């Protein structure tokens, strides 16, 4: 114990840095009254949550589908082509969001014209970057699987669709889940791209940035607490499932 005390202190500081802000907000949120009714009683915040959820879910689904298909397509190319395309796909992730935001806004103005900014432009904008993030998570696994699985399934008489849904996707499941989580988080958190491409729509980030007055801040604290609790419960369920599975395996062994 004495030997490890330094590490315990480091661990304590590490956990404090991570959890102290959320603990403070949670304490404030519960101190301000009913957390759920603070959020549900605020019409503007409810609208912002709806915009964020609809945009993030649709953009994540579409982005992940495109990224999965692109990853599979890329594995069938020659190495030089593959590497070149993979580097190009990294670009949207590496350059600043503001560049993407302005570029998309200019493009949408050209295609759709002024006054047509709303869900359509917002979702398309989010798809453009969720696809890139999902691709980064999915492609390495797709590359690892290679063409061999598809060829083996084909040799055994599977149709291309059967190969995709029964062989490729089950093998990519972990990467697809990871890609979806990253894409959803990036989309849900986004501010600048949504600001320039959402027209009159306001998502959670836009609401939070404007919320500096006490009344609005209380709603933000309540929302943050609720989101934290949802993630925490999800994490606990995930850990419980993992432990249960591990125990079952141990028993079998």
């Amino acid at each position, binding site marked *: 114990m004495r030997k490890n005390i330094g590490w315990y202190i480091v661990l304590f500081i590490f956990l404090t840095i991570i959890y102290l802000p959320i603990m403070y907000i949670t304490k404030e949120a519960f101190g301000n009254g009913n957390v759920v009714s603070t959020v549900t009683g605020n019409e503007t915040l409810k609208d912002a949550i709806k915009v964020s959820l609809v945009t993030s879910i*649709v953009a994540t689904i579409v982005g992940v589908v495109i990224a999965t298909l692109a990853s599979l397509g890329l594995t069938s190319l020659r190495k030089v082509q593959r590497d070149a395309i993979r580097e190009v796909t990294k670009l949207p992730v590496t350059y600043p969001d503001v560049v993407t935001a302005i570029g998309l806004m200019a493009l949408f103005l050209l295609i759709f014209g002024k*006054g047509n900014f709303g869900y359509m432009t917002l979702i398309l904008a989010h798809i453009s970057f969720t696809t890139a993030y999902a691709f980064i998570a999915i492609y390495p696994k797709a590359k690892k699987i290679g063409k061999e699985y598809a060829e083996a399934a084909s040799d055994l008489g599977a149709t291309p669709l059967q190969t995709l849904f029964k062989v490729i996707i089950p093998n990519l499941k972990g990467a697809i889940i990871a890609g979806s989580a990253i894409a959803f988080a990036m989309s849900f958190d986004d501010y600048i791209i949504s600001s320039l491409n959402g027209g009159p729509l306001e998502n959670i980030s836009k609401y939070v940035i*404007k919320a500096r*007055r006490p*009344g*609005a801040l209380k709603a933000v604290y309540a929302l943050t607490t609720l989101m934290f609790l949802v993630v925490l419960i999800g994490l606990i369920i995930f850990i419980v499932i993992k432990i249960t599975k591990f125990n079952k395996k141990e028993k079998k062994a």
Partner: protein
Amino acid sequence: MKKILVLSLVAGISAATISGCNSKTDTITIATWGEYFDRAGDHSEMKALLKEESGYNIRFVTFADNEELESKMKTTDFDLVIPSDYMAAKLMNANMLQKLNLSELGLSKEKFTSSINSVWSEYENGELWEYALPLAAGDLRVMWQGDALQGVTGEDANREISVVKLFDQSSLYVGMHDDARNAALIAMNYYSAKNNLNLTSEQLGNPDVAELEKAFNALKNSAAAKAGKISLLDDTDLAIAWSQQNKVNVAISYNATPLWIFEENSDQENKANGWTIEDGWPTNYSTAHMAESSNLWIDAIAMTTNAKEGTIDVLKAIWDNYSELDVHYNCYTSTLQGTYDEMYGAGGDYEDDYDYALSGKDDHYVVYNYRKEMDSNYNSKINEKYIAFKSSIN
């Protein structure tokens, strides 16, 4: 089975999104200042009222300043917009507003107060009347807690205090808006009063660059500035700092707009900051007009060129209900003479309430020469002087 589930999910979400977008065709979108129509940052009460009166769903989109509104209008078609005076004129000149029929709204120029009427008629030789209506007005005034400003007493709406009294002492923290137009006027007021120049409102409000530089230098050398007790803050931060008496004892702000904060804080929080609270409202706060002159900010309402059918019904509903709501939520002043008299005149609900009333002096307000202000050369020089002043006191 899994495949069907995934496809159903995608189809369901897409359909919900599309139907969600289409269900808003009867929605009128109003671009307005943050928390303009209510104090909690949630426009539900105003939405319900306008829906009942006009039959349309209302979506409020908020902006922090006029330039943000102008920028948003490049990608978004709003139906109604509520810009400030100079921006309304700018939007009109950019053909972004459509003509309004005053009589269709039961209005005429004569129904507005004389100070509003004279200021509004200055814009484009009165042409702005055809495109934008003065909806609310607020002036810059001084607010403080208890007896922080000794010797300034009285209950009348025309109570005045010279800015010299504020800045020539080092015991008070003075907070003002981080805004070139407002800071420039306060500096000019100080400079004029300190040197007995007796400048007119026109000269105070639209100074030459050299004169303004002298004014900022004078303010920079005041006792308050030398003691590091002047803060330049945005509207929200100014209200928060003043309510907490945290480095702002005296605020020079719009009408009584910082008072919203007392509703959002608990009584306990307000009392801890030294306020005597009765029914959620501070009783030991005082306000006065600046003795020299003030900016009169007028916010207008206008229909955009792409406004949807039915927007005029919402505009009418706003007009029919606005004055009462505005005083309640925003602490601004009604622009209509009849409503103004009903509220602040003899027997009015706000007869003794100088929070909202404008100065009774005809020449108190500067006539903002927006043409001069919009000149990029002049404007950049004014901003340059303001930024230099700001850096010197921070």
